[in-house]
């Protein structure tokens, strides 16, 4: 991984100074690496130049979230948090503390006297992680220890719902905190209840697959990355655990800046989504490659880059891979609902320019086709949770 960028945009200017800097990043945090090893987008890290190798491949990485924790098999949040915090520690040269909201990540990592955290770590409540992080940052500033960087993290419930007021306040004050949301699209810790990040039609314990309109309703929910952008904070990015190289690069870029920064990471939950624990990365990839979860960066309220879809898939491939959408296919196929979800993906593709060549799902761009036995591109080949447990 490259060393943290030395360009400190926030020091040049910033919205909090009343001026948007003249120089925003023009290149994405991670340059796309176009070669594959074993039929996936996973880059053969050993073949890369040293400076762009992943932090995770570094034997001297922090192991911020180390082994022994109690996350479920295939937990996307554990995967995302490990990469994100190791990258943040790398960028901060070890001078970093983490504030954690209540939720799966807090519970599975730390019942006293055990802890999987190899970083200084503070948990207070479900809804106050951004404010606690603001307090930590204010304390270090007051004590003249502003070499220490502060990262806060939480799930989608702690971020888009119960912690939203504190998060917006932290953004608005432009406090020097990087907040990372690990979005698995429902309250998984309490047993898969709907959150403000649950997508339409998804089945949860409180939006069950019953009635005329089974699953979560359309027209609700928050697009928090865009809400974060509306605060005109220095940096907002989305990322997904299907592209950990990109996640690491975005954490590095965020850590190179000062002020309030926000990264929203899609982290599939095998339990809540009804996917095989081996399918976490693949199903995340279907989310990004369908356009349902756009991957982009924004600075001071403006989108500065997006990661193009490499081989577009219809949303149906993504939906079929998950039991939480099973009611869209059985007993009656709900083409009307699938079309509405496809329209959402299409809108994302337009909004973030995810298909610069104007590709369509009917005519996939074959110039960049991965080897044919990549399981990520035919959802039919993905094992379902039921199949996995029957093994």
């Amino acid at each position: 991984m490259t060393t943290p960028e030395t360009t400190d945009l926030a020091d040049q200017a910033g919205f909090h100074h009343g001026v948007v800097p003249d120089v925003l990043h023009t290149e994405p945090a991670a340059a796309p690496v176009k070669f594959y090893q074993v039929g996936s987008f996973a880059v053969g890290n050993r073949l890369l130049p040293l400076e762009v190798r992943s932090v995770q491949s570094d034997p001297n990485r922090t192991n911020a979230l180390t082994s022994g924790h109690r996350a479920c098999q295939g937990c996307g949040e554990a995967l995302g948090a490990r990469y994100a915090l190791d990258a943040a520690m790398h960028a901060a040269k070890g001078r970093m503390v983490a504030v954690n909201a209540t939720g799966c990540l807090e519970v599975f990592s730390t019942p006293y006297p055990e802890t999987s955290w190899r970083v200084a770590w503070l948990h207070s409540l479900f809804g106050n992680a951004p404010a606690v992080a603001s307090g930590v940052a204010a304390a270090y500033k007051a004590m003249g220890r502003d070499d220490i960087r502060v990262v806060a993290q939480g799930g989608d419930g702690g971020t888009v719902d119960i912690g939203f007021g504190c998060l917006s306040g932290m953004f608005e004050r432009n406090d020097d905190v990087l907040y990372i949301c690990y979005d698995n699209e429902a309250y998984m810790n309490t047993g898969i209840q709907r959150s403000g990040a649950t997508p339409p039609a998804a089945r949860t314990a409180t939006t069950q697959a019953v009635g005329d309109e089974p699953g979560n309703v359309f027209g609700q929910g928050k697009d928090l990355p865009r809400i974060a952008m509306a605060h005109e904070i220095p940096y907002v990015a989305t990322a997904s655990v299907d592209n950990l190289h990109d996640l690491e690069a975005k954490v590095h870029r965020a850590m190179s800046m000062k002020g309030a920064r926000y990264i929203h990471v899609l982290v599939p939950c095998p339990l809540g989504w009804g996917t095989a624990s081996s399918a976490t990365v693949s199903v995340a990839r279907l989310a990004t490659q369908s356009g349902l979860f756009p991957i982009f960066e924004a600075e001071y309220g403006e989108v500065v880059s997006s990661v193009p879809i490499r081989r577009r898939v219809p949303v149906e491939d993504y939906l079929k891979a998950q039991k939480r959408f099973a009611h869209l296919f059985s007993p009656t196929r709900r083409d009307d609902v699938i079309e509405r979800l496809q329209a959402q993906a299409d809108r994302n593709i337009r909004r973030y320019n995810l298909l610069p060549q104007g590709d369509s799902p009917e005519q996939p761009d074959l110039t960049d086709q991965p080897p044919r036995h990549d399981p990520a591109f035919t959802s039919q080949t993905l094992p379902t949770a039921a199949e996995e447990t029957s093994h």
Partner: protein
Amino acid sequence: MRSQMEGSMAVAKAVAACRPQVICAYPISPQTHIVEGLSAIVKSGELTGCEYVNVESEFAAMSVAIGASAAGARSYTATASQGLLFMVEAVYNASGLGLPIVMTVANRAIGAPINIWNDHTDAMSQRDSGWIQLYAETNQEAADLHVQAFKIAEALSLPVMVCMDGFILTHAVEEVELPEQAQVDAFLPPFTPRQSIDPDDPVSIGAMVGPEAYTEVRYLAHDKQMQALELIPEVAAEFKAAFGRDSGGLVRAYRCEDAETVVIALGSVLGTIKDVVDERRERGEKIGVLGIVSFRPFPLAAVAEALSHATRFVCVEKAFSVGIGGIVDSHVRMALTAKGHPIENYTVIAGLGGRPILKSSLHTMLDRVAADDLERPHFLDLDRDLVEREIARSRSERRSGPSAENMLRDLGAVRATPV
């Protein structure tokens, strides 16, 4: 230096003299003048090494204080009323984490009906939150208590709430001798946290504790409060030695030596009660006053000691436990039962939502106490006719409407609309 100033400004200056490193503030009447004063003190550069954070809610205010204190910074906030209730989850969290935050509560009633004036319902709702609660009688004591509060909090790793009556103290201009900076610096050493979040010593703070140790953790919270029973008088004595003023401590007795009747109260109403007691003393009544400064920890032994010669006590309370009655009263009875000295007692609920506590009303009430003719609990100056009319209305009509509005119409406080 003695000078005339508003209570809020005295507190702001006393807090600033304690050199807090993080102040977080969200405005709510009647606390606003305190945080406004501190804002000016920090922004003008008078207080350096301090971050003043304007937060978006009281929940955030307490949460910022939690983060700042956990990072090792001396942290302060102030609130009142709805604000205190809005931050409750974080209030409990701060004490559970053992963070020595100091918070002023400018005591105010709780809605509905919304009411901005003074009583103790807000702070009393937090009596089980694990915080130490000190109640100031005067603006001088309010200022002094903050200096002591930081010392007590940091010695025990427990947060301290300094309660001062909203408007009656916060907005009153009185002569106050401000603690001098050099004196405060000598009295209050820099804050050394017991544990802090620090990359040089990466620990996990705030993790889950199950049934195997939760009881012991809670016991230790109680034990710390018991330690505070020892420490609070020590700090008050040390304060007197350094500043020459009697402020703080657990309880303060006034003319109690031979008193048969002792009136017990918290906060600014003690001044009015002392005047009433002086007048009754002149008439030969053996009556005294016991002011409770420390409501948490509750000084059972000190209260029992102060009442050891009394034959009855009267608790004048600015809050009550709906559905049972007096709060302070039940504590005092516990103190006396423990000493095997149960005596006649009366609860008087007074001053709710800013209703003035008049000397004449107190005299009438105490006359009835002297005749052992007072209902329990007694609501001082309750307009019983007004209440009875509303009770009758609600019994006769299903859709009788909002009681608060009905009673104000009956009073003629709002213009009656044609039916």
